[in-house]
């Protein structure tokens, strides 16, 4: 199965709110830790190494292309 690159979450605004909301009351360090754990939890849910490798490549390429600090 290829990595899904089209919208796949039925309620994007609601999901984004939940993502932000999960970090309420956390220090920056705790928020970073939360996101890191989320990556691991979701990666396990996906399981498929080929999809995970495509996701890793996309995140890396997009970050490098965006430049930034």
């Amino acid at each position, binding site marked *: 199965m290829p990595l899904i690159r089209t919208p796949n979450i039925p309620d994007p605004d609601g999901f984004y709110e939940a993502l932000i909301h999960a970090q309420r009351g956390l220090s920056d360090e705790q928020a*970073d*830790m939360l996101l*890191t*754990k989320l*990556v*691991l*939890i979701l990666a*396990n849910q996906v399981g498929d190494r080929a999809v995970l490798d495509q996701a890793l490549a996309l995140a890396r390429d997009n970050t490098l292309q965006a430049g930034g600090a």
Partner: protein
Amino acid sequence: MLKTYRFPEYAYRQRAAQREGRVERHPVVIIGAGPVGLSAALDCAARGLPVLLLDDNNSVSQGSRAVCYAKRSLEIWQRLGLGEALADKGVRWQVGKVFHRSELAYQFDLLPQAHHRMPAMINLQQYHLEEALVAACEAQPLISLNWKHKLVALEQGADGIALQVETPDGRFEIQADYLLACDGAGSDTRRMLGLDFQGQVFQDRFLIADVVMKADFPTERWFWFDPPFHPNQSVLLHKQCDGVWRIDFQLGRDADPAEEKKPEKVIPRIQAMLGPEVEFELEWVSVYQFACRRLQQFRHGRVLFVGDSAHQVSPFGARGANSGVQDADNLGWKLQAVLQGRASPALLDSYHAERAAAADENILNSTRSTDFISPKSRASLRLRNAVLELARSEPFARPLVNSGRLSMPTHYAASPLNTPDEAPFDSAMAPGSPCLDAPLANGDWLLRHLGRGFTLLSFGELPPQDLVPALVVGRDIADPQGLLRERYDGQPGTVYLIRPDQHVAARWRGFDPAKVRAALRRALAQE
């Protein structure tokens, strides 16, 4: 001298050849009487080869060093007559606990591997192992063990090697057909040939200490990430025999080794770890740095690099000494076949092919462990800590925890000596695999019957043949529990060709002498 151990001092004896100014010629000369050189000597001798073993020192290892010996090493030593004594002397363990800060993150069980003769792992101070191996070498008439004999120069010619050896009585020359460099990570032989390693040196330093204490810690492997008594670093605790415990402290990149080794620095560290009420004595302490690297080629003409002289790994996973012993196991029968004229020296190239693949596997595993234990960036550290925090309650995260992947024997899946399968098998014993042991009748074991030469293991009667000595299930050995049949998918008619190092060369669903002959030729690199 340690409280729990008196180091033997072996006598230097001048060789008659040196005294008389003669130049001796030996088929096999081994440099270095550590676990690998001593095992290689015993293996060559068991295969009928006379061995000259030289060591520049006259005692055994200082400190516990390698500590952990895996099942495959014990099986090799069992073939050499020592497996049971070592397994009995060593401390057997199977439970490992991983702590993160002050919490138990996760624990694993190596599981008593049911129906195997040897345990999964033992802990034993290296000096005990070496002393047992030395005693076995001294009892073997084909081995001449020479202490205080230092190789200082060598020259390879077309038909042999000339060695310059230095003893307390001066220098003399010895000639050899083959030289096995078992002289460790700092190999002088490697330097004499001007060879360099390829790989990575890690900057982290580790302190290792042997400590005597009467403590009621269980016989388990305990590993801490970032414990309160040693913040931001890792610590490993292992039980050895005679009440000696081995502790490894990660020190980080900027540690000063001379400073860290001082008792006034070491003792408070250990006290903080064990708690103020525990009494202990420090027996030995050392600081090390490690590398994951190997030689590009393990064979250089008549010189073969074996063990740490050929490859080095991080200590996580006990892959150093264990892989060296498997190197020796791989090489012995090949040298025998070449020296006895049954194979050309090309067979020795397969030593490199098979054992370099094993080294790469060990380096890969131990580098991954190192990256987990000693993260190199803030983001890697955060990922590592996220895994450890999740592992406390979430089973999915536990396989990601990597405090060392313990040494397993390498399957030589891509070996040029293998004959590929022609039929499907429901068994992991594919060509190149190390044979799994299996219980037979009356306390007998499969591996006892394998390893002297090539063997045909047959599940069913064979027609008369004189190609390879046969081991017929039901005639020569019995399989009352059916485990042999299960582990080898031994349907009636199945035949395995097994190498002298107990690895599978080929397997078929029926006996065909032409195929056996071809597989034998291939396993001896004759084609």
